C-alpha cells in the first residue's frame, strides 16, 4: 500500500499550484474536523485518522491533477462530500490528502424535455428540490440526511432512499456521472454514451461498478440526475398493533398488494415502541397494549394515491390494529424525511439520560426471516449491553427495500446507542465483535450486511468476503487494476489485501 509520508513543502506547493493557496488547508482544526463522520468512531483513537492536508478543488480537472500528484508521490487520497455517512467511507484510515468537494456545487440547466439535471457533487438534495419546485419536478433521493447529505457522497455509498419503493434509490436515480479514476483519468459512466439515456446494452454496466465504492475507485465530479413529476398527493398511515407478528403479517400483505404508488411500508418492533414511549422526538403517548407499529406511505398523482390508500387502509383495518389519526400520522411521516436519532435518547441501565451516538445497522433481510433476525440481533446487543452499559438497544425498524418493488426483502435497522465519550480499547473491541456477530446473522439468514450505508465499518468488513464469495476476489482484481498504487482511500473494505499477493 501507499506509504504515509510527511507531506513536505514540495507536495503542498504542488497542491497549491492546482487549487490555489487558499484552498490548501493545513491547520490543525481543518484536518482534525475532517477525520470523522457520524458513523461509529473510536474517539479515543481520533488522532490516527487525521488527514495530513485538506484540499478544496473546484473542478474535475483540479481533482484529476490532485490524484495524479498523489500517484506520483504515493500519498493516500480520501474524498469527502457531506461527511454525513453512517459508514466510515470519508474517514481517512491512512491519513493522506483529504479532497473535500463541497465547492463543486454547480447546478446545470433544468431539462424538462429529457427530465434531467446535471449538478456538481457538492449539491444537497433538499436545496436542489427547493430550486426545482417552480418547475413541477423533483429529484426524489430521500435519505434521513436529506437536508444535509450531498450528491457525491450519495453516489459513493450507493445510498438508499426512504421513497425508494416508489421512485428508486440512488443507483436508479443517477442517470450518469463523471468520475476521476485513481490514476487521474476523467471518465463518464452511465447507460451507454448518452448522458441522459436511461437504459443501454452497450458494453459493461460500469455505472453501478463505480457506485458504493466508499471512495476506493475514484472521486465523483458531476452527476446527471432523474427528475420526476413532483407528487400531487401524499398519504401516510401509522397503525398501532397488539403484536409484532400481526404487524409483520400486515406489513407483508401491504408490501405484496401491488399498488404502484407505494413509497414504503415500515415496521417498528416492541423495543422500538418502548423507545418511542420514553423519548421520541415528537413524543406521543401510546396505549399500553401497543407492541408494534405498521406504517405505510404513498406518493403520486391524486387520481392514483387516494384509491390505492383506501384499499391499503382496508387491509390494515382488517388486521385489528388502530389508526393513530391524521395529525400524528402526517407529522410523524414528515419528520422521517429529516431524521437522525438524537444523542439524549441514550439511557444508562438505571434510566439516566446520557449522550450517545446513534449507530444504525442497515442489513437487507428476506421478508420471511425478519422476525428471526429481530430476535437474534436483540440477543446479541443485549449481551453487549449487559457487559458494557455504555451501549443501549434502541429497537428495530424495517422498511421495504427494493427499488420500485416493495416486496421480498426489507431493510432492517437495529439502532444502538454508543456513549462514545467512554470508549476505550476494551469497549471498542467488544463493539466491533458485536458488529461482526450482527453481520454474521444477516448473512446466515440469506441477507446482505448493508442495504443502505455500505459494509466497510469495523467488524462487519471482515465478513464481506464471506457475503460476496468469489465476487469479492473480482472486487480485489478490479481495485488493483484501476488503482495500481492503492492511493484511493486505502484500507477501506479490506482491499489492502488485493496488494498482498503480488
Amino acid at each position, binding site marked *: 500500500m501507499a506509504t504515509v509520508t510527511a507531506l513536505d513543502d514540495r507536495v503542498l506547493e504542488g497542491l497549491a499550484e492546482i487549487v490555489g493557496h487558499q484552498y490548501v488547508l493545513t491547520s490543525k482544526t481543518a484536518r482534525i474536523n475532517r477525520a470523522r463522520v457520524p458513523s461509529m468512531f473510536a474517539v479515543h483513537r481520533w488522532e490516527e485518522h487525521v488527514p495530513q492536508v485538506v484540499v478544496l478543488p473546484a473542478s474535475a480537472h483540479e481533482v484529476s491533477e490532485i490524484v495524479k500528484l498523489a500517484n506520483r508521490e504515493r500519498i493516500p487520497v480520501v474524498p469527502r462530500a457531506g461527511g454525513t455517512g453512517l459508514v466510515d467511507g470519508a474517514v481517512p484510515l491512512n491519513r493522506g490528502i483529504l479532497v473535500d468537494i463541497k465547492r463543486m456545487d454547480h447546478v446545470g440547466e433544468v431539462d424538462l424535455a429529457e427530465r434531467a439535471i446535471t449538478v456538481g457533487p457538492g449539491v444537497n438534495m*433538499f436545496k436542489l*428540490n*427547493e430550486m426545482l*419546485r417552480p418547475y413541477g419536478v*423533483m429529484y426524489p433521493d430521500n435519505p434521513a440526511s436529506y437536508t444535509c447529505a450531498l450528491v457525491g457522497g450519495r453516489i459513493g455509498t450507493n445510498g438508499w432512499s426512504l421513497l425508494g419503493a416508489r421512485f428508486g434509490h440512488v443507483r436508479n436515480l443517477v442517470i450518469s456521472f463523471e468520475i476521476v479514476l485513481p490514476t487521474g483519468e476523467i471518465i463518464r459512466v452511465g447507460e451507454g454514451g448518452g448522458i441522459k439515456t436511461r437504459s443501454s446494452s452497450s458494453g459493461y454496466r460500469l455505472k453501478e461498478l463505480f457506485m458504493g465504492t466508499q471512495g476506493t475507485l475514484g472521486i465523483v465530479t458531476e452527476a446527471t440526475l432523474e427528475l420526476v413529476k*413532483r*407528487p*400531487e*398527493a*401524499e*398519504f*401516510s*398511515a401509522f397503525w398501532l398493533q397488539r403484536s409484532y407478528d400481526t404487524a409483520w403479517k400486515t406489513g407483508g400483505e401491504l408490501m405484496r398488494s401491488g399498488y404502484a404508488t407505494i413509497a414504503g411500508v415500515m415496521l417498528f418492533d416492541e423495543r422500538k415502541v418502548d423507545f418511542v*414511549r*420514553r*423519548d421520541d422526538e*415528537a*413524543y406521543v*403517548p401510546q396505549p399500553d397494549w401497543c407492541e408494534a407499529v405498521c406504517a405505510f406511505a*404513498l*406518493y403520486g398523482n*391524486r387520481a392514483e*394515491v*387516494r384509491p390505492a*390508500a*383506501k384499499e391499503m*387502509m*382496508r387491509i390494515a*383495518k382488517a388486521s385489528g390494529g388502530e*389508526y393513530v*389519526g*391524521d395529525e400524528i*400520522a*402526517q*407529522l410523524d411521516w*414528515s*419528520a422521517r*424525511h*429529516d431524521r437522525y436519532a438524537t444523542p*439524549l435518547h441514550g*439511557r*444508562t441501565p*438505571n*434510566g*439516566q*439520560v*446520557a*449522550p450517545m451516538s446513534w449507530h444504525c445497522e442497515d442489513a437487507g433481510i428476506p421478508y420471511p426471516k425478519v422476525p428471526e433476525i429481530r430476535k437474534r440481533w436483540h440477543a446479541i446487543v443485549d449481551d453487549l449491553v449487559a457487559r458494557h452499559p455504555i451501549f443501549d438497544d434502541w429497537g428495530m425498524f424495517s422498511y421495504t427495500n427494493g427499488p420500485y418493488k416493495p416486496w421480498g426483502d426489507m431493510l432492517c435497522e437495529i439502532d444502538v446507542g454508543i456513549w462514545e465519550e467512554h470508549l476505550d480499547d476494551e469497549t471498542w473491541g467488544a463493539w466491533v465483535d458485536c458488529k461482526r456477530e450482527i453481520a454474521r446473522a444477516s448473512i446466515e439468514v440469506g441477507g446482505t450486511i448493508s442495504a443502505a450505508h455500505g459494509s466497510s465499518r469495523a467488524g462487519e468488513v471482515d465478513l464481506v468476503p464471506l457475503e460476496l464469495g468469489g465476487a469479492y476476489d473480482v472486487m480485489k482484481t478490479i481495485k488493483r487494476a484501476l488503482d495500481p498504487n492503492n492511493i484511493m482511500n486505502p484500507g477501506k473494505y479490506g482491499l489492502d489485501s488485493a496488494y498482498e499477493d503480488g
Partner: protein
Amino acid sequence: MQGYRRADQTPPPAQRITDLVVMRHEHIYEVDPDLMTEHVEQQHIPAWDMLRMVDSRLEWLYMLQAHFSDERVSGEELLAEIEAEEASHP
C-alpha cells in the same frame, strides 16, 4: 401589549404523564427531570424559548410536507368511507 419580563419566564409546575414523562406547558412533553441528574444537567430554558422550539418544529414539519407534495390524503376520511361501506354491506 405585553413585552418580555424575566419574571414570566419560569415554567409552570410539572404534571406527571407517565413514569418517564412530565408536562409543564400544555401539550409539551418533557423527560422526567429526575432522569437528568447524573450525566447531563438540564439547561435553564425560559418559557419563550420552549414555545419557540415547539412552534419551529411544527413549522418545519409543515414546510417539509409542502416540499414533498401539494396535498395530503386523510386516513380518517378513508376509514370513515370504509366503515360506511361496511355498514351498508355487512
